[in-house]
């Protein structure tokens, strides 16, 4: 991995494995939702994760954030934050340590703002619930700080007295962004934060996330299936397929020179306004992760599949500087 000088990783994920283990009527079932994922997120960058539904994006970030609930289990590997160097994953640290870093160092922006904001409490109280204990000070002082912070996402301080249902979807999502950033955390996890918003509002919210991130110099792990959003927003991009990372690199590099056949398809299949070229869908369907195909999980749908792909898992190899790919056709002779 080509670490740029002076930009140490805030998050190092190595060979992370997270499985859903269920046991119904004596039948054990294991869904390997995240299987051997490794990447770095550096300081002051937005790292994007792209992939289709059920490719393991959300499971991956839940594992990284330590939000593990049965049947989800972290089976192996590590996800180490620079602000929590003594533990190799948030989920393995004791609860009092996690409480200390949560929101202060690690915060989240979720998809459904209605699920974050308590519908029965004014926005002011949500701010107090989330952030007061980390910031401290008097009640007035804290409220003034919350009001000042809301202005950064271009919301009027009167929003503090409103209930969530009185705000539009875009305003609510801006409130959750303000909530997630008021403590100036080192690391923010954003899971599909704009998917439920209309395109015009989405553009606004993305610009806001970008400017706050640059101002605070924090790192964001940004998840969405929308390749257009990744192209516009992220610095580096990882592509997930069926629980594994198949390619990652600088975002302009991934879009300009995609190497993995799946990435190439994802980018080539997007229609563009002003372009009438025929675009094709990909044959087949994403695999069932309870019974994933052996070898490379993409091989049943891959136009470049070779006999080797059905038996051996391709290793993630730095094919070009800073650009890693897991594919036998791109990297001959590299097995995991």
């Amino acid at each position, binding site marked *: 991995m*080509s670490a*740029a*000088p*002076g*930009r140490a990783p805030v998050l190092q994920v190595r060979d992370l494995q997270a499985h859903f283990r269920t046991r119904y009527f004596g039948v054990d079932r294991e869904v390997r939702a995240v299987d051997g994922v490794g990447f770095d997120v550096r300081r*002051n960058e937005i790292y994007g994760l792209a992939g*289709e*539904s059920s490719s393991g994006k959300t499971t991956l970030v839940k594992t990284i954030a330590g939000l593990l609930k049965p049947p989800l289990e972290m089976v192996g590997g590590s996800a180490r934050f620079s602000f929590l160097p003594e533990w190799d994953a948030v989920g393995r640290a004791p609860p009092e340590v996690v409480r200390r870093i949560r929101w202060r160092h690690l915060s989240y922006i979720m998809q459904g703002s209605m699920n974050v904001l308590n519908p029965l409490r004014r926005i002011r109280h949500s701010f107090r619930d989330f952030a007061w204990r980390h910031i401290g000070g008097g009640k007035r002082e804290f409220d003034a700080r919350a009001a000042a912070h809301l202005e950064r996402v271009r919301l009027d301080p009167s929003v503090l007295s409103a209930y969530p249902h009185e705000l539009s979807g875009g305003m609510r999502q801006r409130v959750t962004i303000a909530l997630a950033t008021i403590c100036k955390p080192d690391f923010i996890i954003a899971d599909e934060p704009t998917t439920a918003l*209309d*395109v*015009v509002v*989405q*553009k606004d919210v*993305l*610009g806001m996330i*970008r*400017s706050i*991130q*640059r101002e605070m*110099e924090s790192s964001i792990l940004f998840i969405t*299936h*929308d*390749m*257009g*959003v990744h*192209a*516009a*927003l992220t*610095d580096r991009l990882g592509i997930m397929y069926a629980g594994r990372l198949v390619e990652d*690199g*600088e*975002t*302009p*590099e991934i*879009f*300009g*020179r995609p190497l993995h056949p*799946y990435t190439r*398809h*994802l*980018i080539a*299949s*997007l*229609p*563009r*306004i*002003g372009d*009438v070229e*025929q*675009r*094709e*869908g*990909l*044959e087949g*369907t*994403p695999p069932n992760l309870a019974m994933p195909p052996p070898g490379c999980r993409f091989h049943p*749908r891959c136009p470049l599949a070779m006999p080797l792909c059905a038996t051996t898992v391709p290793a993630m190899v730095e094919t070009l*500087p*800073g*650009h890693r790919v897991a594919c036998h056709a791109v990297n001959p002779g590299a097995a995991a």
Partner: protein
Amino acid sequence: MSALLELDKVSKSFSRGGLFSSRRVDAVKEVSFTLDDGRPEIFTVIGESGSGKSTLARMILGINAASSGQVRLAGRDVASYERRAFMAQVQPIFQNPFEAFNPLKRLDRYLFMTAERFGGAADRAAAEELADGALRQVGLSLAEVSGRFPHELSGGQLQRVAVARALVARPRLIVADEPVSMVDASLRMSIVNLFGRLRDELGLSIIYITHDLATAYYISDRLIIMQKGMVVEAGPARAVLSAPSHPYSRQLRDAVLTPDSAGAFRARHPLKAAATPGATP
């Protein structure tokens, strides 16, 4: 040339609230357009959430009656049709195939029921033949679907079954409300291309309701752009989207993020520290 579907100043308003403080909400205001018979096309309705596009679809399907104005199919008011005769000509496809199908019911039952009620199949053998023919149109077969439950298929396959179910009735018009927004990215274009084939090969007209301007540009012939229940711009799809004239259409067009908009936000907020390593090819 006669008209297949005519909307004549169709409006729909809902009243909200109780006895003392009722408020009228105009969901759709005076929308008019005509689809010609004998000239199949994909007619797109674009708008963001709350713009009234789904309400419009429900009125075309005869699920809701218009508050004023008229929806006419082949010259007759939609409300005057006997329900079965109407459904044999106009069929819906919905956004989320997992919600459209009952999870406890086998998929082939839907196909057979549609064949018997609307497709004119006299017995089971005729229904099976119709179902198989429709499934083959969408790249599946009865053997693959027979006896399966919705959860056994992926979202893309299930949406294709939903299209096949609509085709079993041999309709003249399909109303598809956000048919690809729940379908995986790698499969989305196969559904969109399928609509193109249905138009070109079967001569079906399709009303394609979406908020995705890129697929609208790619597949549709004509479109209308709706805002707050009103049509703000209408015309040939590619001409309108290439050079939108209404401020709202322009705003929508400019907000579309594609791979070509790479760095739209990066450029405005460059790194303060060293420049991003790695060259753009």
